[in-house]
């Protein structure tokens, strides 16, 4: 052992950052960002399609479609990229090369998932910018139409009211916390997928189970409320409901964007509660994934 070499540390942020960077690069090389083209087509297409409706309808459909698309694309991206992480490294034998060096398994796992989180952050930011850009463009077009109407003789009070209505229906600052919650939901789903992939036998299994968890996660709230209310359900049903409530995350709690799109304001405290909850889920599923991965025979 070389006495001049720096002592090996149990945890190194540099090692995690290197792994995260490498994971991000690998995923970018898989050309995952091509989906942005699809997203752009969807947003611009829905923007053009709704021109025939009133401006409130136009903005509402544009917001709903874009936010829904950000949500589904970010979830799919997180799910597929995470499901590929471990099997790909096992197939390429990169995993053995990395773990043969003094890199603890939790650092490896943390670096890998951090790479996916970074990818999601870039993707969600890009989609949000594209959506907000199209929204701003449509807003300006409608405002110009109103100016032209005003020049043709529309009463000034009416034109001012219409312009105010357009501004109220288009961009609102509370869209930003809504987009942040979409990102957190994708991160949570990615961490759950990582947990599944630590014991899964194949990528297909990981993807299928993650999709099922995603679907159950959205009805978990109904099961939980029914279970907590008690009622006259059979004990077998109660046990099943309890298991669903205890094991699965309530993903419906992260669907605040539907109301945000129609102007409901998210109070700061509520936003931080949702964010905190999302981070707690992510942490717990990450720790459980580490527990399994640490004792996995490779």
């Amino acid at each position, binding site marked *: 052992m070389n006495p001049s070499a720096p002592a090996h540390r149990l945890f190194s942020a540099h090692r995690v950052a290197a792994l995260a960077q490498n994971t991000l690069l690998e995923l970018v090389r898989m050309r995952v960002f091509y989906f942005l083209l699809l997203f752009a087509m969807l947003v611009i297409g829905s923007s053009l399609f709704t021109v025939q*409706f009133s401006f*409130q*309808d136009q903005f*509402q*459909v544009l*917001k*709903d*479609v874009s*936010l*829904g698309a950000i*949500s*589904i694309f970010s979830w799919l991206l997180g799910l597929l990229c995470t499901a590929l992480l471990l099997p790909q490294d096992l197939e390429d034998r990169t995993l053995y090369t990395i773990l043969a060096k003094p890199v603890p398994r939790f650092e490896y796992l943390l670096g890998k998932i951090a790479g996916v989180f970074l990818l999601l952050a870039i993707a969600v930011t890009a989609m949000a910018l594209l959506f907000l850009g199209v929204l701003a463009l449509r807003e300006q077009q409608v405002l110009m139409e109103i100016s032209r109407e005003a020049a043709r003789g529309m009463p000034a009070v009416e034109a001012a*009211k219409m312009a105010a209505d357009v501004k109220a229906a288009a961009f609102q600052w509370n869209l930003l916390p809504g987009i942040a919650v979409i990102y957190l*939901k994708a991160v949570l789903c990615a961490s759950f997928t990582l947990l599944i992939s630590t014991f899964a036998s194949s990528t297909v299994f990981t993807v299928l189970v993650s999709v099922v968890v*995603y*679907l159950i996660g*959205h*009805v*978990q*709230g*109904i099961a*939980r*409320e029914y279970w*907590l209310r008690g009622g006259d359900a059979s004990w077998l049903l109660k046990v099943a409901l309890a298991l669903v*409530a*205890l*094991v699965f*995350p*309530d*993903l*419906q*709690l*992260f*669907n*605040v*964007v*539907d*109301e945000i*799109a*129609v*102007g*409901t*304001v*998210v*109070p700061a405290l*509520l936003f931080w*509660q*949702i964010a905190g*909850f999302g981070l707690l889920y992510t942490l*717990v599923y990450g*720790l*459980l994934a580490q*527990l*399994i991965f640490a*004792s996995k025979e490779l």
Partner: protein
Amino acid sequence: MKLRVCFAVLLLAFGVPKVFLEQRLLETQRLHGFQVAQWNKGLRGQIGQMGFVAALSGFRAIMADVVWLKAYSAFERSEWGRMKLLLDSATQLQPKAILFWEMAHFHMAYDAAMSVRLNEDLQPSDALRRRAERQYLQIGEQFLLDGIAFNPDSARLRERLGTLYANRFHDPSRAADAFLESSRKVGAMDYVRGFAGYQMAKVPGREREAYQLLREVHANKAARGLQFPPTLLHVLADLENKLEVPKADRIGSSAPAQ
């Protein structure tokens, strides 16, 4: 084996506090107007199994838009019954969208009601046409009342309710109350209080209340250097005559109310 037990214990240990935290967060969200969509069999029947799954899976707003667009195409074909069912689904999926409630009431109370009233080919009996018109008016009113229940702070829906009572139900008393309620909400239009006074002036027994309200509107406009609408000035003058207000205290014109 030991690992599996450890994993299950940890998952359940996290699960117990998680369930109660989730329930609390859900209640907080509902308090702030989130998670208010109604899931029921009727909705499932209207939007289909896949639509219901999509709506449950976080794409409720998109599903509401899809149903809304279907309702629009039903409107283009004057299929009022089908349109009503689709509007029910759209508003159930997205109950916080003021626009949906507002347009749903308008399509029912104005478009559908007028269409069935005037369509002699569909129903030759005038009495039955009038009955159908009344039914659509009530459906329109119900959309607004439900919309207000979901959005109690909406000035716009109350204003529309006032307009509906005034123009279609010819009920100035309820119209005045709806306009007055609207004027008390944040974001109410400036003219709504005047509308309330205008409608109230038509109600026998509420003349003094109407007079006080219109004087307040007049004073408010004068303080801000705004012009008082001539129609309201005539109403005010009429009320001053009815209430025998002393000449020195009068502000209305002597012209008769229109």
